[in-house]
């Protein structure tokens, strides 16, 4: 036990003097991730807002045939401009991205309206350009509203109530809370937290294993009358120390930087106050052991510092995979998922951010399972150090 603490203290001290470790563990991860995230968020939010407030632009061919429709659209704030060349010209303009939407009024439009028959209009869009989706929806909505107005006039002219043709009215009521709307946006937050935590242990794990062997300091170390397990566990705990520190700093900078993202303007709120931050830290702590043991184990297999660096660079992405899947498939927290490390932490963090109740059982299962996996990996690393081949 004393040897373990000696190893732990020495690794922490030595790596504190290594600019690369300090930079990646205590500066780049904790500062970089939240800042990047905040900037990304602000840009996304600003772009959404611009989208809604920008007047809809509509290119029209044959507008002379439908003066009332044009007047209605302009009355709704649509900026209408004319494009030459009829239907062919409109199709070409959309295909070549000169306009986002083109509305073509056929020549028989006025006649059919006058006759009370369905009048066709053509809306040219390019569905491969996903940025036009919102515009298309708005254009269809406006034209539909105009059609509904004509329909109600016609019914009124025949002495019928417009309600006759509307047997069902749909009213959409959004029950999501502002906090829940924000978490849909903040699914990536736990991804960044997990990633920054792993980065915190990356260099110290390499230095304590592949680095030690490459420097030639491993062989004399193994000639000391100390149990190999003390050496390995000391190194893993040193990585844990850095990762726990990195995690604390990352959550803190997240809490601070998110105050500068103006979520309230968008009807969203995110509670990352002291209580939530502390809870996230507690939920993540078992993952620190797992991550440190995993990094140490894999780095022990590699032959050189460089090789370890390239292996671990890819390895830190592995625990973030379940989080990506969870985001893509919109996995909801349930007890059956809580035994999976990193996924369970992600789901618990999402619940905490959303302000949902978090069950004691879920937290206990997440922590217990993650710690068990961590100890298993630590034991595997210790076994590795018990072998002769560890000297390479």
């Amino acid at each position, binding site marked *: 036990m004393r*040897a373990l603490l*000696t190893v732990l203290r020495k690794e922490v001290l*030595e*790596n504190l*003097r290594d600019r690369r470790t300090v930079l990646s563990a205590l500066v780049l991860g904790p500062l970089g991730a939240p800042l990047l995230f905040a900037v990304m968020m602000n840009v996304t939010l600003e772009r959404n807002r611009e989208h809604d407030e920008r007047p809809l632009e509509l290119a029209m061919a044959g507008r002379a045939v439908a003066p009332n429709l044009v007047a209605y659209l302009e009355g709704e704030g649509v900026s209408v401009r004319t494009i030459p060349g009829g239907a062919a010209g409109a199709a070409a303009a959309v295909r070549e991205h000169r306009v986002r939407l083109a509305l073509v009024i056929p020549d028989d439009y006025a006649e059919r309206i006058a006759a009370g028959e369905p009048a066709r209009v053509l809306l040219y869009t390019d569905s491969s350009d996903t940025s036009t989706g919102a515009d298309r929806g708005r254009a269809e909505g406006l034209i539909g509203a105009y059609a509904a107005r004509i329909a109600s006039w016609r019914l009124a002219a025949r002495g019928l109530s417009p309600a006759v043709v509307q047997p069902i009215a749909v009213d959409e009521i959004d029950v999501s809370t502002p906090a829940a709307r924000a978490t849909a946006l903040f699914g990536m937050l736990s991804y960044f937290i997990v990633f920054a935590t792993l980065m915190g242990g990356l260099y110290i794990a390499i230095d304590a294993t592949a680095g030690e062997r490459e420097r*030639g300091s491993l062989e*004399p170390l193994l*000639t000391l*009358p100390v149990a190999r397990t003390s050496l390995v566990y000391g190194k893993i705990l040193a990585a844990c120390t850095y990762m726990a520190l990195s995690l604390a700093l990352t959550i803190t900078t997240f809490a601070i930087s998110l105050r500068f993202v103006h979520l309230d303007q968008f009807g969203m709120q995110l509670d990352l106050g002291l209580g939530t931050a502390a809870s996230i830290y507690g939920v993540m702590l078992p993952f620190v052991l797992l991550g440190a043991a995993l990094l140490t184990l894999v780095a022990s297999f590699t032959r050189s510092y460089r090789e370890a660096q390239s292996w671990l660079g890819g390895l830190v992405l592995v625990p973030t995979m379940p989080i990506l899947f969870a985001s893509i498939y919109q996995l909801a927290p349930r007890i059956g998922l809580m035994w999976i490390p990193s996924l369970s932490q992600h789901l618990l963090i999402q619940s905490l951010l959303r302000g949902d109740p978090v069950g004691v059982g879920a937290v206990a299962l997440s922590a217990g399972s993650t710690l068990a996996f961590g100890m298993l990996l630590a034991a595997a690393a210790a076994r590795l150090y018990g072998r*002769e081949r560890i000297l390479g």
Partner: protein
Amino acid sequence: MIRLDSLEKRFGDVVAVDDISLDAPDGRVTGLLGPNGAGKSTTLRLVYGVQRPDGGRALVDGIDVASDRQRALARLGVLPHNAGLYPHLSARENIRYYGELQGLRGVALERRIDVLAELLELGPLLARRTKGFSQGERVKVSLARALVHEPRNLVLDEPTSGLDVLATRNVRELVRRLRDAGHCILFTSHVMQEVAALCDDIAIVARGRIVARGTPAELAATAPGGSLEDAFVAALSAGAAP
């Protein structure tokens, strides 16, 4: 004292150490002399317990290294070949780390480090980080590290390789002084002059076997040319024959 008792080590089909028996008594310098790849380093690795023998035993003060590793190693100071230091730690911190892992603490440990600094003439090096130390300076710190727990037995693998003349002389003087203080010293070299200048007993190793042994004078007397070099060459060519 260190005793090698019919030691054997194989790596796959290759027999690296083939039935080596040797006594390295206290108060004497025992040298394993042999060309590169003869099995000297592997033999020492069996003594300091980072590899396990496939046959035979290595004993430190009568304690079997394989079965009672920690107790045996506590009586052993080891300088492996090309031993590395921690570049971000000062020389004192490097030595202190090993001292603490050997179970030493506090004032006693610091005093011991001061004694070693004097013995090895570390002087101003002690407070400096070891990054950028010369090979000679690194060997000195590694030696201090190996001696921090005052071991009775010392294993040195090519301690002078890569050292300049002056540094080599310093190491030799230190080894003699430790021998005169009653330590058991087992060391390897592929440089004949080194062994001739330092050893009380020599074992010439080739292809994992001891092919000749004796004091420098005894070995020289058996050779046709009457010099230790002739004896070395003769032993090697005899050992190389099938």
